[in-house]
């Protein structure tokens, strides 16, 4: 320390000086930018409009966009510190290739040549489908669209899926089964206009904080939150239903049972717009309040009260997230929710919607344009007409379009274990932390002949297994569009250059196509994301997710537009199915009888506790980004285990003690215990963000047979004091 500083003559004035910014007023000089770049937040799917402040080629500040229709100027803690992720120390800077066990820096040319050669070699030896590709919900739609073509036609593998399967696949499958197509039918505005809002397994206060601001605009609402934990969202509720884990189907069926008995259903709507009511009604017979009370642990009065509130509402909204989706019955739970909305006619009207709140910023983009679980524009692999149409649009032979979807994410991993998948390309996701039952994943990775990890960050826990790492640009460094949960497409803009040799994923895909000699065939004349967007507009034209009327300029001007937005449209469509016309061939929605089943791994004497996982507001997914943002990381630097005081007492645990969480599969060691009545006796909760205390060491390989989504939320564990058995 210098003397001037010590005696107080030097007060680091430069560091602490402030200046006037026309937008934010007096603020630290270091945070006053030269220009503000309008863009959309790259974390969750709420899709907040924001500006990134740039000074000397660096992002120095962010602020919410007051004119944006989603967030009206507000941002959550992650959004408010998002610019710090760009300059994080763990950014991937150069392509890295494993040679003799060590990662070495190589040039882009060598990296891509090696990748293409290895992939081609594996495909030549074991068949085209021996290559697996797992992407993300974090890219821009233009990149998803390009990647879909590159995977399916360029590499010719149909085994392409996204980590959206760990997140929204149940909602997608549920919507498809009920309505005939994916696509969330409602809008955020419904949160402001509904008089009853039922949130099931959705902790929006931690996970979609800006939606809480929308909720609070609604003064007339009754907010009902069904969640086994007393989450921050449950604390906001008028009625909290602390149901037993994974009993939501019984609750929803129970509500439907009461409403049918009480005549609080819309028979006219059922008649005109649905099929299958008789079967549904018969299946609901047994879901009497007594039976439902027994399953859910809720009092019968609570079930009656909830049912009557929902049934008598002028406009009732059901929102859900991972509490529903992360389940072996995820898709069916979505169907049960849709059933309830349909029999009461609570869909397609202001405030009335069964609405899945999506996870990642552009999970919707990959669902619509990505070519993973369906062909672009919600077309079906199984439909000859859809395949023909896509082949024509892409100017390829129809025989090149797969006739069924390839393996879903978990099946790609299991195929790697079985050595049917020999090479894997992972893009912008971190399965080592996010995939259930790590030991299976480890076995899969170790069985691969070549693993490519393309990411904005290096090292990541997943890149530790990689043979090749491709450094990618991230949010703030590239252009394109994100589509949020309410089908609003917003513009994403480049504020700064990517660090080192990192390149936008879009450029990487085009370069790979060039190496594959298919760039001209698949991406003729493309130079930037705008070309992909123009083609995607043509591909989506006339579909439910119609983008054909949008332009980049229009998106900039409106701060995001909801699809469908056909050519000539001037405003977006707030809600789908306003006319009661659904996407099944008969134009009707299907009411599907759904049976409640207990979750697969029930607690017993050796593993007496139910293990639940989830998030905290400070962190995003596996913390490759937020772990580097000091202000966020210092608020939640380590994982913790929530345990009820009753269980803690019987185990002799004190707050802040270190414990191991042990399942039949493995153990997570040294987790700090938080003794709280937020969790009920017999249950424990742990956040899933932390590589250092990876909850997915103990979670199980159990997947929804329909959506293939993992059952992250419940498994049986025991808790031991760390070191007690050593």
């Amino acid at each position, binding site marked *: 320390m210098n003397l001037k500083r010590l*005696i107080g003559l030097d007060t680091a004035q430069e560091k602490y000086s402030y200046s006037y910014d026309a937008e934010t007023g007096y603020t630290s000089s270091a945070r006053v930018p030269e220009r503000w770049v309008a863009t959309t937040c790259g974390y969750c799917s709420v899709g907040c409009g924001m500006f990134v402040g740039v000074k000397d080629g660096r992002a120095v500040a962010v602020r919410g966009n007051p004119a944006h229709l989603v967030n009206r100027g507000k941002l959550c803690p992650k959004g408010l510190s998002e610019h710090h992720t760009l300059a994080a120390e763990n950014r991937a800077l150069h392509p890295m290739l494993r040679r003799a066990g060590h990662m070495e820096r190589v040039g882009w040319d060598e990296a891509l040549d090696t990748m293409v050669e290895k992939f081609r070699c594996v495909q030549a030896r074991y068949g085209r489908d021996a290559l697996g590709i797992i992407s993300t919900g974090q890219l821009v739609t233009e990149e998803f669209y390009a990647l879909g073509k590159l995977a399916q036609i360029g590499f010719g593998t149909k085994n392409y899926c996204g980590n959206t399967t760990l997140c929204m696949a149940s909602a997608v499958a549920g919507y498809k089964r009920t309505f005939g197509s994916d696509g969330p039918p409602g809008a955020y505005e419904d949160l402001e206009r509904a008089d009853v809002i039922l949130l099931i397994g959705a902790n929006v206060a931690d996970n979609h904080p800006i939606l809480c601001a929308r909720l609070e605009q609604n003064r007339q609402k009754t907010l009902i939150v069904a969640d086994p934990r007393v989450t921050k969202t449950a604390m906001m509720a008028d009625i909290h239903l602390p149901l037993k884990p994974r009993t939501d189907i019984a609750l929803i069926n129970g509500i439907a049972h009461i409403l049918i008995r009480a005549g609080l259903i819309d028979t006219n709507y059922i008649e005109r717009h649905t099929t299958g009511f008789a079967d549904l009604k018969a299946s609901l017979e047994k879901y009497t309040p007594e039976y439902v009370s027994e399953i859910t642990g809720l009092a019968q009065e609570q079930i009656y009260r909830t049912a009557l509130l929902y049934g008598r509402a002028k406009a009732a909204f059901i929102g859900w997230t991972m509490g529903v989706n992360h389940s072996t019955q995820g898709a069916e739970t979505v169907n049960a929710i849709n059933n309830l909305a349909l029999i009461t006619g609570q869909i397609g009207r202001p405030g009335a919607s069964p609405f899945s709140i999506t996870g990642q910023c552009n999970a919707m983009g990959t669902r619509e344009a990505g070519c993973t679980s369906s062909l672009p524009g919600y077309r079906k692999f199984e439909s000859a007409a859809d395949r023909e149409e896509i082949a024509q649009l892409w100017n390829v032979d129809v025989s090149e379009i797969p006739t069924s979807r390839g393996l879903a994410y978990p099946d790609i991993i299991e195929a790697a274990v079985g050595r049917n998948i020999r090479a894997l390309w992972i893009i912008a996701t971190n399965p080592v932390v996010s995939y259930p039952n790590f030991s299976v994943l480890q076995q899969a990775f170790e069985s691969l002949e070549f693993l490519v990890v393309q990411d904005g960050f290096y090292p990541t826990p997943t890149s530790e297994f990689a043979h090749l790492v491709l450094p990618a640009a991230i949010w703030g460094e590239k252009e394109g569009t994100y589509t949020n949960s309410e089908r609003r497409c917003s513009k994403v803009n480049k504020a700064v250059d990517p660090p080192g040799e990192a390149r936008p994923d879009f450029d990487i895909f085009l370069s790979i196509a060039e190496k594959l000699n298919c760039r001209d065939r698949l991406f003729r004349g493309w130079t930037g994301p705008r070309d992909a967007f123009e083609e995607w507009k043509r591909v989506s034209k006339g579909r439910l997710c119609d983008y054909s009327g949008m332009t980049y300029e229009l998106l900039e001007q409106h701060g995001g537009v909801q699809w469908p937005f056909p050519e000539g449209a001037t405003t977006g469509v707030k809600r789908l199915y306003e006319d009661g016309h659904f996407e099944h061939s008969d134009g009707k929605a299907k009411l599907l009888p759904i049976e409640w089943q207990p979750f697969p791994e029930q607690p017993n004497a050796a593993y007496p506790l139910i293990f639940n996982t989830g998030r905290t507001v400070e962190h995003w997914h596996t913390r490759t980004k937020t772990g580097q943002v000091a202000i966020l990381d210092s608020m939640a630097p380590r994982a913790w285990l929530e345990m009820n005081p009753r269980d803690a007492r019987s185990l002799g645990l004190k707050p802040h003690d270190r414990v191991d969480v042990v399942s039949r599969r493995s153990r997570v060691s040294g987790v700090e215990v938080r003794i709280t009545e937020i969790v009920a006796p017999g249950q424990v909760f742990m956040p899933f963000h932390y590589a250092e205390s990876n909850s997915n060491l103990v979670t199980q390989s159990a997947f929804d047979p329909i959506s293939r989504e993992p059952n992250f939320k419940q498994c049986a564990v025991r808790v031991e004091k760390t070191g007690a058995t050593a």
Partner: protein
Amino acid sequence: MPAADKTVSTTRITVPEDLPFELKKADYDRVRPEHAHGPLVAMTVLTQMAVGAFAAIWLRSLIRAGGSPPYGAAIAFAIAVLALGASTFHLGRPVHAYRALRMWRRSWLSREVLAFSLFAGVAFAYAAALWMRIPAATLLGGTTVLFGIAGITSSAFIYLVPARPAWNSKHTVSEFFLTAAILGSLFGSITTIAATAAGLQLLNQAVKFLWLTRSDEFELRASARLLSHDLHTAFLLRFALLITGGIVLPLTGWPVLALAIATAGEMLGRYLFFVSVVPRNIAASFFSRKAA
């Protein structure tokens, strides 16, 4: 949530009115020792020692009990200078320390700086007068002691703030003056007063600990918990040093060793004073930055 009038708060935080009675702060079980403020430990103990020493010198001169050798006052003055010098290391901008004087009308800190500056000035004159055997020395001595008492009073009152409940009591004032009495009388070799003062300090600390333990207030109980758990070795050692240096050694004829050990005891006591206070805060996160 502490009441807003406990501090001059500029941020308005509202919590729901219907919070359950048994709701606890997320950081309820994470009470950690506060900052030790090394320069302040040195400054407060040494200024108190210097004031006590001048008081002893002055008293001895009053009763003409043979007086102390003239270098005694010079050493006491050196201690005072050392203490005041140490205190500047606590400031963000030591070079502008004089600015602290400006708020003497309302700030105990300002008054402390003022009183100790005057104390140092007069003490210098007193020490010089004793050295040169100037007759006005007794008057200067009395003035020195008066400013010293004002200084210690100001020091103590700085800590009487609602936001730090464990400090906000008469025990703080007693502790500071008893430190002066123990160390000053040992400095002046007045062993009976030293032993009496040490006994009173022992009582003062014991009563304070009982008060903390039995309080209804979370922050006070948490202070007691720190003393009896995280800091219990230092707490026991503090008592041992006080008994040894303040009572046993002076009464058994080891005055110099007694002064050294008693000074160490008071320094340790002051360290505990700073680190064991639990501030009245709004709830923080469940975590501390460091692993528990």
